């Protein structure tokens, strides 16, 4: 696997493999197949691909109908349109009846960049985590994406998988095996735990390197499955490191941080901190400029970790 690859590219390639292995897989898109990469599947299996046009609500209904008739359905668009635009259609037609639909959305977060706030997806994890019956995954790299997409195809029920626009540093080697609902400790440490998902995992690893030089041993946990959450890993981190920082490319409420905080509050209260997108709509800008503005950098993580060490008492 390359050193850098976008998770949406890995998605397209995996879909083609799955299409060859399983005739039951049907793929839908809403006029963004060039960006989500479902076009790769469309080229190989035109008879099992349906471009629904610019009509996300309708697409989710069609997906539900196909799934109710025994198909394994993948439906893709940008994260912002695959969540808010069709929330009730997903709720009634997919979540409640527990249909076998895999919503794989590219362009999550603010690393979408220059397109601006209409295209930044900052509420999608809150929306999807709010649905009963859904599994919600934010893969850390292209490798994990390939695995997560395969697991979603093989596991009955609705999934939301959030991917990113930019290329992402690869953090998992080819031997990695994704397990639904299982966090992965990427780096051992005993002073503070960072729990991160998506693009933020690589940045947390960079922060761990820098902090090691300052004598702080940071544990880095990749929590790619937000729902169902790995309670055991969270409780373990709280017990063993005594402080937890959550880092995500999403609003502070409703995503990774809130979910982890509920587990910590219930089972093992320890000082916590949250690095997330601040509570406003971001402007256009380069992906890194925007992430920097919200402190979603390795330096930002370092700073928060040092502050948490001070609060551990």
């Amino acid at each position, binding site marked *: 696997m390359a050193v850098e690859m976008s998770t949406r590219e890995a998605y397209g390639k995996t879909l083609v493999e799955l299409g060859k292995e399983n005739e039951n897989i049907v793929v839908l898109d809403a006029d*963004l197949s060039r960006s989500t990469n479902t076009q790769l599947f469309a080229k190989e299996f035109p008879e099992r691909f349906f471009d629904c046009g610019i009509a996300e609500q309708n697409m989710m209904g069609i997906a539900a109908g196909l799934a109710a008739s025994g198909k394994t359905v993948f439906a893709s668009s940008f994260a912002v349109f695959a969540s808010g635009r069709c929330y009730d259609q997903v709720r009634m037609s997919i979540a409640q009846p527990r249909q076998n639909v895999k919503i794989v959305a590219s362009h999550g977060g603010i690393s979408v960049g220059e397109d601006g706030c209409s295209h930044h997806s900052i509420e999608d994890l809150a929306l999807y985590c709010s649905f009963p019956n859904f599994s919600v995954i934010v893969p850390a790299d292209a490798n994990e994406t390939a695995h997560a997409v395969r697991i979603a195809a093989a596991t009955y029920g609705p999934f939301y998988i959030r991917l990113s626009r930019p290329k992402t540093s690869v953090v998992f080697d080819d031997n990695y095996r994704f397990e639904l609902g299982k966090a992965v400790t990427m780096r051992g440490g005993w002073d503070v735990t960072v729990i991160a998902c998506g693009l933020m995992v690589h940045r947390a690893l960079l922060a761990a390197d820098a902090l090691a030089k300052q004598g702080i041993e940071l544990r880095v946990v990749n929590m790619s499955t937000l729902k169902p959450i790995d309670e055991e890993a969270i409780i373990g981190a709280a017990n063993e490191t005594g402080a937890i920082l959550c880092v995500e490319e999403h609003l502070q409420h409703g995503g990774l941080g809130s979910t982890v905080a509920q587990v910590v509050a219930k089972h093992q209260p320890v000082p916590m901190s949250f690095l997330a997108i601040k509570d406003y709509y971001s402007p256009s800008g380069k992906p890194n400029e925007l992430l920097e503005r919200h402190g979603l950098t390795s330096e930002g993580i370092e700073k928060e970790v040092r502050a948490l060490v001070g609060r551990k008492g």
Partner: protein
Amino acid sequence: MAKTLRRHIIRMTAKAGSGHPGGSLSAVEILTALFFNHLRYDPRNPRWTDRDRFVLSKGHAAPLLYSALAEAGYFATEELLTLRQLDSRLQGHADMTATPGVELSTGSLGQGLSFGIGIAIAARLDRRDYRVYVLVGDGECEEGQVWEAAMAAAHFKVDNIVAIIDRNQQQIDGWTYEIMNSEPLDEKWRSFGWHVIEVNGHDPAQILAALEEAKTVKGKPTAIIAHTTKGKGVSFMENNLEFHGRAPTADEAEQALKELE
């Protein structure tokens, strides 16, 4: 003026390194007709209560709207080159909180016409004579909300609203008739209770005549289906899907500007 707007669109997207030139270029004559021959507005007072409203529902054509607003005097044309830069007033998609003269934040397709109906009804309630113009993409017409709005405008007998459909026959994944066929589009609007006028969307005289005709239609809304070419005016961008959402490189921009001399 059309050429000037086209040159702005090329220069600003090239400088930004991203953006949507294709769907901006296709509607240049439409905005030229509106902003420089038809609309009532005051650039020194962007929120003037009696201004005619222009709503860009296909918000990705922001480079075109910004070019027209700058030439209309809302801000300096030099500012156009800040498109999409951090903290610029010129956001990637139209943003009413950032740019003077922008009536609605758009970029998520399908929502402009509903908003337009709201301001059109408000004019009636307040006994004001301003008119409302909404530019909608033909791909955008695939969104169900467009038809919910179409039904509502006719139902409420809103006759101070004009939907202008940029019928360039392209969207992102391909030709509109291949991706989601919406023909016969004129009959659809008519059957929803609209007065429909079809024009060559690159012919200023036809556009202006249609805008005048719309003023005379009472008791129902008017849809102007403007037949256009995506990427119009730059040979290698015309009907080229690639330039829906890709900016010209420096070399391409240079060639485009030569063609637009």
